[in-house]
C-alpha cells in the first residue's frame, strides 16, 4: 500500500506513456471548469484547488527535497503549467450535475483530447473518465471526471509531463507499477500485484 501522491506520480507516468502512442499534436490549455455552485452548496466537504504556473513554482520551492515523496512531486510538477481540482463529498446522494459535465465534455471533444479510460460500474453507481492531451508525442494535459455515490471530482492537469523523469520513479520507494489497459486493445490488463505480506 502506498500514499496517494506516489500512486498519482506512477499512474500519471503510465498514462503519459500510453498517451504518447497517440499521434495527435495539440496544445493544451486549461479547461474552463464550471463553478459547480449547486454541488458546493450541498457538499459536506470540498476541495477547490487552482494552481497556475506561478503558484506551482511557489509551492515547489516549499517542498521538502529530503522527503522522497515531496521530491518526486517536485520533479513531477516541474513541467506543469497548472493543476485544477474540484472535488465534493456529500452526506447523501445529490442530483448529478449533468449540464456542467456536458460543458466539460464539449471542451474535451475538441481536437487534441483523447478519451483514455471510460469505465462505468453500475452496481457501485461509479463512473470514471480519463482524457489525455498529446502534443508532439508528449502528454501535455490530463482531465479526470469521477462520480461516485457521494463524491464528485474533476481534475485538470496542464503542462508537459516529463516521461523519463516519471519512469525513473517507478519501482522506487516501494512504488508498484499500476497496470492500465493497453491503448490498442479492449482487453486484458495484468492483475494488480498482491498486497505485501
Amino acid at each position, binding site marked *: 500500500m502506498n500514499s496517494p501522491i506516489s500512486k498519482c*506520480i506512477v499512474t500519471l507516468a503510465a498514462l503519459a506513456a500510453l498517451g504518447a502512442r497517440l499521434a495527435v499534436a495539440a496544445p493544451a490549455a486549461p479547461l474552463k471548469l464550471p463553478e459547480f455552485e449547486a454541488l458546493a452548496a450541498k457538499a459536506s466537504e470540498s476541495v477547490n484547488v487552482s494552481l497556475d504556473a506561478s503558484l506551482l513554482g511557489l509551492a515547489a520551492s516549499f517542498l521538502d527535497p529530503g522527503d522522497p515523496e515531496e521530491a518526486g512531486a517536485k520533479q513531477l510538477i516541474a513541467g506543469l503549467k497548472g493543476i485544477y481540482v474540484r472535488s465534493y463529498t456529500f452526506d447523501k446522494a445529490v442530483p448529478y450535475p449533468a449540464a456542467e459535465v456536458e460543458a466539460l465534455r464539449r471542451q474535451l471533444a475538441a481536437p487534441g483530447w483523447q478519451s483514455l479510460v471510460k469505465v462505468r460500474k453500475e452496481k457501485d453507481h461509479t463512473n470514471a473518465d480519463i482524457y489525455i492531451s498529446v502534443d508532439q508525442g508528449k502528454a501535455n494535459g490530463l482531465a479526470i471526471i469521477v462520480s461516485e455515490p457521494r463524491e464528485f471530482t474533476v481534475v485538470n492537469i496542464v503542462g508537459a509531463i516529463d516521461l523519463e523523469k516519471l519512469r525513473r520513479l517507478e519501482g522506487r520507494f516501494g512504488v508498484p507499477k499500476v497496470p492500465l489497459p493497453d491503448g490498442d486493445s479492449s482487453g486484458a490488463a495484468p492483475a494488480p500485484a498482491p498486497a505485501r505480506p
Partner: protein
Amino acid sequence: MSHQDMNRDDDLGLEQRLRAALRPVDPGAGFAGGVMARIATERPGNVRTFRARAAASWGGFALAASVVVALLLAHQQQMRRTEQGLEARRQLIEALRVTGDKLDLASRMVNAPPPAPNSSDSGA
C-alpha cells in the same frame, strides 16, 4: 474469529480489531528511571527551579524581543510570501492526493474482474 470470518466483517469489526491490535503496551520496566537518569545527566549540580530560571532570563528576553520585533517588521513581506508558499504547498499536496485517489479508483475499476454472468445475489 478466523481470517475467513474477517471477509464478512463490516467496518465496525475491522475497527474493533484495529483497537485490539493497537492496545497500548508498557515500555520496559526501567523506562521512567532511564528518563530521570538522562535528566540528571543533562543538569549536573544545577538545582535552580524552572521559575527561577525563567525569572533570571526575563531581562534577556526583553532585549531579544525588541530585536525580534524590529526583524519581524523588516521581514513582513518575506513572511507573507512564506505563508503563501506553504498554503500553495498544502493545496498542491491536497490536489495530488485527490488526483492519486481518483486515478487509483479508475485503475481498480478497469482491472476489476468482470462480473459473473447470471449472478442472482441481491447486490445493490
